[in-house]
Every structure is written in structure tokens, then in C-alpha cells.
């Protein structure tokens, strides 16, 4: 029996969140097996084999795994489930899309977005936008789990030397087809792994003004985030959204500019190590979670702050 982690990757390299899921898996027992399903994914499989704590890598290489279609990957994971006590994936859009489908095919519950492993069958996960922490116990023979990346350290990407085994691939389901990608290109660090995040809210007023955050982001090497209100208003794309229904971040420094601090935004950033809030409304709820609050108009703040960083 083993703990099976479904790797998120782009055939060349592992996505960072896979390393956090491997750490969670290691807390459940040994050995940890990583499934790398892709098309010409040898490089990703090699990277998985080098991760510290990985006992074995299963490589499923087929044209129908070129893109991570849940309809194709779920039967593959199910075919490997009989040897597993636990199946884990990052709680990214990849893992959230795939694992509930796997769980239903196995007729077991799925456990979303865990933040703590209590024991092999008991886990903690946030509910109500993180306003409650639920401890759940699963009696199912296999536990299907997505892992909140910010709650577990990344496993070291080197130091391991796991064997890579090829596994049989079920025939294509053929009910879904990849058409295209439109991935945001950015020189900036990725939002979920950045050391510093600067986020803007509705207070910025327009997409044009939102660009004012870039000066600070460039100076600090920060990623740019946004509140749901800013996304809804069309100031910036949804993949920058931080919150209950967007991304969960926990950087060393989170700077919230013109964000009021709605419950659903706090859910995505309140685990940050240091929080700075800048808002001209001194009653804004964001100040309740801020280590450093500054009551100031953001249009005065941004140029002054940028200059002060020189």
C-alpha cells in the first residue's frame, strides 16, 4: 500500500504546489508514490523522482494526457487506487477539478483543501471562508484529499532518487477535448508562491490606475493580487484574485491597497506573515488583520512608497 500524490506539471517541470502536497503525503505514512501523467513527460517524472521523500514515481505517458483533462486522468488514477490508502493533489484548479471526479468513481468522499493532517484518517479544513476550522474523520478505504499549499512546507526538490516505473494507460474516454490556452505571461513571481504580494481593490478605481501597483511590485519583486471587487469591476484578470473563491496566498509580506477587507478576501490572505493595509477609510475591516495600518489616500501613498523604496 502507498500514499499516492498526483503531480501537477507541464510535462517539463513540476508545479510548485506538488511539493507541498508531497509534504502532506509524507505526514500520512510511507512510501509516497508520485503519479506523473502527461505526454512526453520524462523531464517532469525525473524531477518528481528527485524530490526528497518520494519513494517511487509512476509515469503514465500518452497523447490523451497532453493536457490535464479530468475525463482522461480520473480513470487512470482509479486504475492505480487499489494500491493506495490515500490519494492527494494540490488544491489548485488542477486538483480541485480532478480529485472529486476520482472520489466519486471510487464511491468515497473527497476532502477538500486540508490545512492539517491530524492522523491517517483525520484532517482539518477551513469552512465558511476560513471562519471555521472543521476536523473531519474519513472511514473510507481510500482517502481522496486536496492539499492547501500554504499550510504545508514545500518538500525539497532535490535529494531523492526514486525509481521511475511506467504504468499502463486506460484507453481514451474521448468525451472532452483541449482547444486552447490563454496563459498570462508575466515576469513577476507567481502569486501563490511569491515572497511579497501587493494587492489592489476597488479603491483603485480603474484598470488604468491598477497599473500604479506595478511600480511597487517591480521595486519589491512582488506578485500582484486583487480583491474580488477589483476583478468584478474588470480592473484585472481573475487569475490575480485573492480570496475564498480565488487564490489562497501566505507570503512573508502582503500589502493591501484600497481593499476594504471583505470576509471573502480575508479568507485568501490572512495567513500572510506580515500584513500592511493602506486605506483612506480608517474604519475599513482590513485594518483588523493588518500588522501595520496606514490611513492614507492610495493615490498619494503609491508614488511616495515607491520613492521611499529607492
Amino acid at each position, binding site marked *: 500500500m502507498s500514499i499516492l500524490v498526483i503531480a501537477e506539471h507541464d510535462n517539463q517541470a513540476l508545479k510548485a504546489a506538488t511539493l507541498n502536497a508531497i509534504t502532506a503525503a509524507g505526514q500520512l505514512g510511507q512510501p509516497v508514490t508520485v503519479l506523473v501523467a502527461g505526454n512526453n513527460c520524462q523531464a517532469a517524472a525525473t524531477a518528481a523522482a528527485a524530490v526528497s521523500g518520494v519513494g517511487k514515481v509512476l509515469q503514465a505517458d500518452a497523447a490523451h494526457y497532453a493536457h490535464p483533462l479530468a475525463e482522461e486522468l480520473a480513470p487512470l488514477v482509479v486504475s492505480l487506487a487499489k494500491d493506495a490508502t490515500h490519494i492527494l493533489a494540490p488544491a489548485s484548479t488542477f486538483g480541485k*477539478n480532478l480529485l*472529486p471526479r476520482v*472520489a466519486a468513481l471510487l464511491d468515497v468522499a473527497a476532502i*477538500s483543501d486540508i490545512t492539517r493532517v491530524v492522523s491517517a484518517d483525520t484532517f482539518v479544513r477551513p*469552512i465558511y471562508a476560513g*471562519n471555521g476550522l472543521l476536523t473531519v474523520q474519513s472511514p473510507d478505504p481510500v482517502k481522496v484529499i486536496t492539499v492547501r499549499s500554504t499550510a504545508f512546507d514545500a518538500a525539497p526538490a532535490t535529494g531523492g532518487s526514486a525509481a521511475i516505473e511506467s504504468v499502463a494507460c486506460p484507453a481514451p474516454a474521448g*468525451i472532452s477535448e483541449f482547444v486552447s490556452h490563454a496563459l498570462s505571461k508575466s515576469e513577476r513571481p507567481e502569486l501563490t508562491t511569491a515572497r511579497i504580494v501587493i494587492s489592489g481593490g476597488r479603491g483603485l478605481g480603474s484598470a488604468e490606475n491598477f497599473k500604479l501597483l506595478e511600480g511597487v511590485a517591480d521595486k519589491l519583486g512582488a506578485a500582484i493580487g486583487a480583491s474580488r471587487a477589483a476583478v468584478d469591476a474588470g480592473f484585472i484578470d481573475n*487569475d490575480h484574485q485573492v480570496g475564498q473563491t480565488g487564490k489562497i496566498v501566505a507570503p512573508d509580506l502582503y500589502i493591501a491597497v484600497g481593499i476594504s477587507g471583505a470576509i471573502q478576501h480575508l479568507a485568501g490572505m*490572512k495567513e500572510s506573515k506580515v500584513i500592511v493595509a493602506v486605506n483612506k477609510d480608517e474604519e475599513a475591516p482590513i485594518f483588523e488583520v493588518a500588522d501595520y495600518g496606514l490611513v492614507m489616500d492610495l493615490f498619494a501613498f503609491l508614488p511616495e512608497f515607491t520613492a521611499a523604496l529607492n
Partner: protein
Amino acid sequence: MKILVPIKRVVDPNIRVRVKSDQTGVETANLKMAINPFCEIAVEEAVRLQEAGKAKEVVLVTIGGSQCQDVLRTGMAMGADRAILIETDAALQPLGIAKLLKAVIEKEAPNLVITGKQAIDDDNNQTSQMLAALLGWPQGTFASKLELNGDHAVVTREIDGGLETLKLRLPAVISTDLRLNEPRYVKLPNIMKAKKKPLDVIKPETLGVDFAPRLKSLKVEEPAKRKAGIKVANVAELVAKLKNEAKVI
């Protein structure tokens, strides 16, 4: 084309809930309830497809106590044609919900199911994917754009790092993300009209599926509170604090 939209009644998303002092759950008594925001987007999308002549009928389903009729009426006021309440006071989890929905879908035979991606109470984000799995249908989760073309749907999905477009064979299950649409405000005449639309109440036992919860909830705790912070007077003080005290820049 018939579209089925499963929806959920939740605590109003703007209310900050409290954990019960005995840690058995979250206090929901006497709180304002509402249709889950993502479910509202699902209803809106179905109604727009109908208005565009792409769908003939929009049917809502929810599962819960008799009080859940209110969200079904709201959905019908938005434009859905009729509704089904699977009436139960039993505890529900996504797998059981997906099984109940599957049983209804087998009777109703819709060509498309649109759900919200996540309910803002349990934050599971599972039911659509589970339902698609049980039906053997493709899934277009976290959709920000949906087009129907004959025997397939083209779905643009919000994924980490951008957008992904998939072509799904129909029937399919779609789950909505925020940018799919902006739900309409319901007008009073439509609320009146919705009162007369058919609402069937059925008992889950008649559907012949095991929907008992699998996971045992041991306790619900309040998250650790952040230590109270300070207000700084100006940018210079902020920069000094970040450099010398927090040591993060």
C-alpha cells in the same frame, strides 16, 4: 435543450458566521439566508441561454428542508420555468448530493447541467465534478464563458495562470466561476409570477440512493486570531517598520 440547475441555500455571504461555543458547528440560527452566489450565476446563465433561444426549459433543483423553497422561488423569479425540492432535514455531503441529483437527472433527462463551482458555506467545490463522474459526462468546471454548438459545448475555464478552453460532448456538467455573467436583479412582477410556477416536492427516499454522509465531523474550531497590529503615521514610518521591525523588505 433542457437545462437543469442544482442550487443551494446558504448563509448570506456577507455575514461573518460564528463558531458555536460547544464546537459542534457554526451558528446559523436566525441568520439571513440566500441563494449561493455561484448558483445564482448558474441560474442566470441557464436563463440567458433560454432567452437566446438555445434552451427550451430551465429546471431548478435543491435539496434540504422546506425552507429551501425560497431560493427556488428566487431562481424562478430570475426566469427558470419550474423547480424540484428534494425535501430532507438529513445531513448532506457532496457525494450523497451528487447521487440524489443523478437520480433526478435520470428522470428529467436534461442535455446540460449548470451548477455553482462552490458553496460558500462548506467550501467543498466537489458536487459538479462528482455528478459528472457518476453520470459519465464531461465536466467544464470554473467556467467563465459557455457556448453551445449543436452536440457539444465550448467552455472557457478559469485556471491558475490564465484561461483554458475545452470542447465537451453533450450532455455535460458545467460549474460556474465569477466572470461567467452578472446575475440580474429580480423585479417585483417576476417575483409574483414565480409564485405561480410549478414547484414539486419529492422525498429523497423515493429516489432509491444511499445519500448518507461519509465523513464524520469531529469539531469546528475558531481560527487563531491575528495579534492586533498598529497604525503608522506615514510612509516613512511604514518603510522603517518593514525594514527594521518586520525585516521583510
